[in-house]
């Protein structure tokens, strides 16, 4: 399935439904069909759509793309090494163009934790129970498109009380040699009292063609489960990303989500949403975005407090250079029954050039009366005085800026509980600042 010219036109009007998919699995075909009709109903957003006001998606879909995923991309050991995180001791799941490659992966075995292709889990009752059911996905056209036409992805299931001795690192590799629209789909289910650490990172190994990734990750945390979920977005310039991550938290569960958007994808749109359906939960959403050139980074988050006694804490920080554009929309909904809710949100930005831009808006919808909620937004520039102070002690301009950006990012990176990942991020920040100065 290839669009001749504008992909926007093609998926608005010409794209065939899921019944055309030869590899469509019968078990979820009805759900796919439903999603497809929902997609047709919703239509693609324009800048008149409130949720997409600051992100003109048409601009990024005007090129031609192939909708089919390449069956096999070839990935060399060297390329894989480039995508890895130095000194990280972890299991590894390598996905090439959205498909799990067992030969490149090192998966946990023999325990209560399953990591498999989503297509291999089609008969699993968990998939039947959760696939495309998250309430927040229902109004997202790109999530509907993904549900209707996705090719494959990961299924991760952790049994009751299951835990892993080290994190699971998911490496997404994109190899398309012609423009491709790739739709991975993942489902992560943690049963009662299970804990897991997941790191996702991405690498593009072909910058001659444009890769558009429209991914959906559904997360289910059963009672007292805990998930540390680190998402590192660090692909090549010629890539565009829409990531929908939707979590459901049952009672006493803890979800720690980190989003690191690093150079240099042209477009990154993250829709991160959490539905709190059981009480006494904890939700920590941390985001750091470093954008340069003409990068556009849009974070939409939604924390849905449906029941009493839940705690959510959100901190997003951005450092923007050159002509980079940032968008942050943080929605917090507190249901009328959700008394004793604690919901905090903060978005801080550091603009390092005259032309960089940020649009930030908190959306607080509070219908309960016994709650503690706050939000805040700041935008600032580098403190020249701080920079001078560091330089006057012999620290070069570049190292001084790097120190200051690291310091700005500190309350995010400090929450990362994996030292190798902390070091990796510090190094990325250093490279980012060095690149900024050399430009």
């Amino acid at each position, binding site marked *: 399935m290839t669009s001749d010219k504008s992909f926007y036109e093609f998926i608005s009007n010409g794209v065939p439904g899921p019944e055309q998919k030869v590899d469509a699995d019968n078990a979820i075909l009805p759900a796919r069909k439903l999603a497809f009709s929902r997609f047709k109903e919703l239509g693609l957003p324009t800048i008149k759509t409130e949720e997409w006001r600051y992100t003109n998606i048409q601009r990024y879909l005007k090129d031609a793309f192939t909708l089919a995923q390449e069956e096999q991309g070839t990935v060399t050991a060297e390329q894989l090494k480039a995508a890895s995180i130095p000194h990280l001791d972890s299991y590894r799941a390598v996905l090439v163009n959205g498909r799990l490659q067992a030969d490149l992966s090192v998966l946990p075995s023999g325990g209560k934790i399953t990591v498999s292709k989503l297509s291999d889990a089609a008969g699993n009752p968990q998939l039947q129970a959760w696939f495309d059911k998250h309430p927040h996905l229902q109004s997202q056209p790109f999530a509907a498109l993904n549900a209707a036409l996705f090719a494959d992805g990961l299924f991760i299931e952790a049994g009751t009380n299951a835990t892993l001795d080290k994190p699971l690192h998911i490496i997404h590799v994109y190899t398309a040699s012609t423009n491709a629209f790739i739709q991975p789909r993942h489902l992560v289910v943690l049963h009662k009292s299970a804990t897991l650490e997941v790191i996702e990172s991405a690498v593009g190994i072909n910058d001659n063609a444009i890769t558009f990734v429209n991914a959906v990750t559904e997360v289910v945390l059963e009672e007292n489960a805990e998930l540390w979920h680190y998402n590192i977005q660090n692909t090549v310039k010629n890539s565009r990303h829409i990531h929908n991550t939707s979590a459901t938290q049952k009672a006493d569960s803890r979800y720690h989500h980190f989003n690191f958007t690093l150079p240099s994808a042209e477009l990154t749109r993250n829709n991160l949403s959490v539905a709190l359906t059981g009480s006494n939960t904890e939700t920590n959403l941390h985001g750091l975005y470093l954008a340069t050139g003409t990068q556009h980074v849009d974070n939409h988050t939604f924390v849905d407090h449906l029941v009493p006694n839940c705690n959510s804490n959100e901190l997003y920080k951005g450092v923007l250079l050159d002509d980079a554009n940032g968008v942050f929309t943080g929605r917090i909904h507190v249901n009328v029954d959700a008394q004793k809710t604690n919901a905090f949100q903060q978005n801080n930005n550091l603009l390092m050039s005259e032309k960089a831009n940020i649009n930030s808006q908190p959306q607080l919808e509070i219908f309960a009366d016994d709650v503690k909620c706050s939000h805040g937004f700041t935008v600032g520039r580098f*403190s*020249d*005085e*701080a920079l*001078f*102070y*560091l*330089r*006057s*002690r*012999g*620290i*070069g*301009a570049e*190292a*001084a800026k790097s*120190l*200051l950006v*690291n*310091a*700005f*990012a*500190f*309350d995010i990176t400090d929450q990362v509980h994996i030292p190798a990942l902390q070091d990796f991020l510090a190094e990325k920040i250093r490279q980012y600042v060095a690149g900024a100065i050399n430009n």
Partner: protein
Amino acid sequence: MLTIKNLHAEVDGKQILKGINLEIRKGEMHAIMGPNGSGKSSLSSVLAGRENYTVTQGEVIFEGKNLLDMSPEDRAREGLFMAFQYPVEIPGVSNLHFLKTALNEIRTYHGLPAMESKEFLKLTKEKQQLVDFNANLMNRSLNEGFSGGEKKRNEVFQLAMLDPKLAILDETDSGLDIDALRIVAAGVNKLRSADKAFMVITHYQRLLEYIVPDFVHVLYNGQIVKTGTKELALELEEKGYDWLKEEVHQKESV
């Protein structure tokens, strides 16, 4: 060590320094005094390389090199240190990490390898004692939430760690109570040596009771209008600055 010749500088188009001449040799302690707005802190800013100052005339030679051609970090690496009047708070940068970075950048500049952690910690302990600097502050963010006295002690502690050839103390005494002043002054006195020089900028004579200068210069209206020894400071304390201002104006009208 430092030769300032006919130094003129402006900030935001306003002339602040109007022809400073000063010679500082190894081992000397110079005090710069003067009323508010006379250009004392501007002089230290120009020497340290603060970017909003523009030098319009004159030159500054430091250890045979043109200081004004150097970036602020290179001035520091060449051995110039300024203790700030208002030390900056930098949340997220730990004191220890900051000092280690500074020390190693200076070492790299001189072709030396980075200092081993063990050696660095030993040096840190030794210098902390010099200014009675609380070890608990080492792992805290740089100056964040420090009291006025702790910030000033931290400046002198950094001075001790980085071991410069010439140290400028910009109103290090301001805002200090007498006990803190004594500690800071004692620290500075211990750092005095035959191959180091100091320039102490102060508004009050009080500091000079503890740090005894070899020379006292009075800055007024962007120029050094009088130079003397420590007795000059006492005279200023007693009579204030007005008599000097009058003397200058009389000279001008003649």
